[in-house]
């Protein structure tokens, strides 16, 4: 008994130390020391996560079971499968733009293929995320689960994991479909382009396709997280609409930044309200536009792994913050 109590005190002490270190890291992130804001933020979040695990001792088995049930149920949703089939058809069609020049044809294939994955991924992420918890509440399946030794936070985390796994699985199917189409057509198109003097590398373009697909995956994880978080306090329809709004606003992040920092003595339309609104939007909403690197690929700009890592890290960090928020919101929910 005494040993158990001592180990409990030791665990709590360790958790407090981790929280203090995390607070220090947050301070460094705010100061943007060495330009490593995201790295410090990520480390702080990881430490806070470990502290939370030590303090709450979550039932990992329960979380995984909820995640598993979420995945297997989501997989059976008719809407998801319709979107998936639609995506695969679009991806297949992306290789039928043969009337264009070789370079334009390749670009068109990349644009349509990756665009289809992104569009269908967005639909899946929004409608899956919005309905996961809402459906459980509407159908009252949540009542039976929460009457078992499953904490509300464990249920929510399980739902997030299930959603992420589902989104990943669907995007993998679409990604593989596109990659197959790409592998069939791209070598000929690149060879034709090289023959007319264009400097295209098949290997580099292939790697860029992988990078773009990877970023779409992180983007859709983040978008589904937004949808799930909103659905913990609102109806699924509201959640879907708000998530789509946030998604499209996130495509305008740089525009909001421009509006917030715009300063020109010759222009008189400098509304402080508009500036504040733009600043809040820029700081608050996830920068979804950063996840879309099609423009870079099509203009043959280099796509560095560092940039992929930073953008993916941004998505993961944002998603983890949303998980924490969803847990808090759901803890106040009544059924």
């Amino acid at each position, binding site marked *: 008994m005494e040993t158990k109590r001592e180990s409990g005190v030791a665990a709590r002490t360790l958790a407090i130390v981790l929280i203090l270190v995390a607070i220090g890291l947050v301070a460094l992130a705010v100061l943007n020391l060495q330009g490593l804001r995201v790295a410090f933020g990520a480390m702080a979040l990881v430490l806070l996560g470990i502290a939370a695990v030590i303090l709450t001792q979550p039932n990992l088995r*329960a979380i995984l*079971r909820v995640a598993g049930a979420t995945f297997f149920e989501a997989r059976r949703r008719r809407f998801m499968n319709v979107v998936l089939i639609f995506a695969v058809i679009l991806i297949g069609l992306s290789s039928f733009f043969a009337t264009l020049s070789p370079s334009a044809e390749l670009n068109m294939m990349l644009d349509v293929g990756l665009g289809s994955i992104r569009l269908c991924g967005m639909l899946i992420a929004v409608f899956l995320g919005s309905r996961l918890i809402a459906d459980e509440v509407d159908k009252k399946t949540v*009542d*039976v689960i929460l*009457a078992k*030794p499953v904490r509300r936070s464990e249920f929510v985390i399980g739902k997030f994991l299930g959603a992420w796994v589902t989104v990943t699985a669907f995007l993998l199917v679409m990604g593989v479909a596109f990659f197959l189409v790409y592998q069939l057509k791209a070598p000929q198109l690149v060879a034709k382009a090289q023959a007319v003097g264009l400097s295209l590398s098949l290997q580099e373009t292939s790697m860029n396709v992988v990078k773009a697909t990877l970023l779409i995956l992180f983007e859709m994880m983040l978008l589904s997280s937004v949808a799930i978080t909103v659905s913990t306090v609102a109806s699924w329809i509201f959640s879907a609409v708000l998530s789509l709004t946030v998604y499209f606003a996130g495509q305008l992040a740089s525009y909001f930044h421009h509006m917030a920092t715009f300063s020109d003595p010759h222009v008189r339309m400098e509304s402080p309200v508009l500036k504040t609104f733009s600043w809040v939007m820029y700081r608050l909403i996830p920068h979804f536009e950063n996840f879309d690197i099609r423009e870079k690929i099509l203009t043959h700009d280099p796509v560095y792994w560092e940039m992929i890592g930073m953008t993916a890290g941004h998505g993961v960090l944002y998603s983890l913050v949303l998980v924490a928020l969803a847990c808090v919101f759901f803890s106040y929910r*009544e*059924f």
Partner: protein
Amino acid sequence: MGEIGIAIRTEGLTKVYRIGIRGTHTGIGNLTMEVPEGLIYGLVGPNGAGKTTTLKLLLGLLFPTSGSGEVLGHPLGSAEYKGRIGYVPDGPYFYDHLNAPELLRFYGTLFGMKGPGLEQRIAELLELVGMADRAHFRVHEYSKGMRQRIAVAQALLNDPDLIFLDEPTSGLDPMGAIQMRNIVLDLRSRGKTVFLCSHLLKDMEPMCDRVAIVSRGQLKLEGSIEDVLKVGSGFRVRATGLTPETRAKVEGATTEIGEADDDGVVALKTADQQRALEIAGVLAADGARIIEVGPDRRTLEEVFIDVVEGQAGD
């Protein structure tokens, strides 16, 4: 002999719902009760009386507006007691794509159960609720009664010390209702506590050790089933087919003769058992049909109607 523990204790438990911006509705108000361990406790009341609200407060699905409570010694909503309880909701819904063993496996793992122990428990429970031969059916193929049976099975997975049942016989055929009653009685015989919510009073009366009657969010009456149903120390004869002549013959021996109910049954009350038997003999000789001779006990339905109509308990 050990002291009887308290499975559920509430103190001034109140839940007020917000309706619109300014409106409120009291789901349950100032509920103070104690449910001893090892008994079948019935919470009865008309629709909208506050039964399900009470149940959800005890399960931590709703938060009290005021007051407090404990289940198995732990505060309401804490995860500590949920490993020791079972819950059968009213009109249960489950994941549609699973079959019975998959569903029970899912819920079993939430209790930390696994391996052959869990598989054996699943097989036992499917047998117990009469679903062993339909185990491969998916939930979306279930009838209401089958859902109810599987709801009972999932509630018993962890061999709970306390089981909550909300309208347990709803949707069951007569055989299913009898099976359910046997399951509940078996739980009590094994020392478990059963908390039953229902408005089906005929199902509740033979099972419950204690009952609480709630109406419009207020506890109206609470006590052991004997205390609640007993009117006095007298006896009564219930019979049909009484002629005015027969009534006149026995009138002097009775303390009260009631009016015939919808089925033509007349209750004749008397002071002691011997006189009740004599009255029954006279009635039978005159061709009346004797329904019952016994202590002057009201039915739960009679008490319930009195309480709900405000004639008792206030």
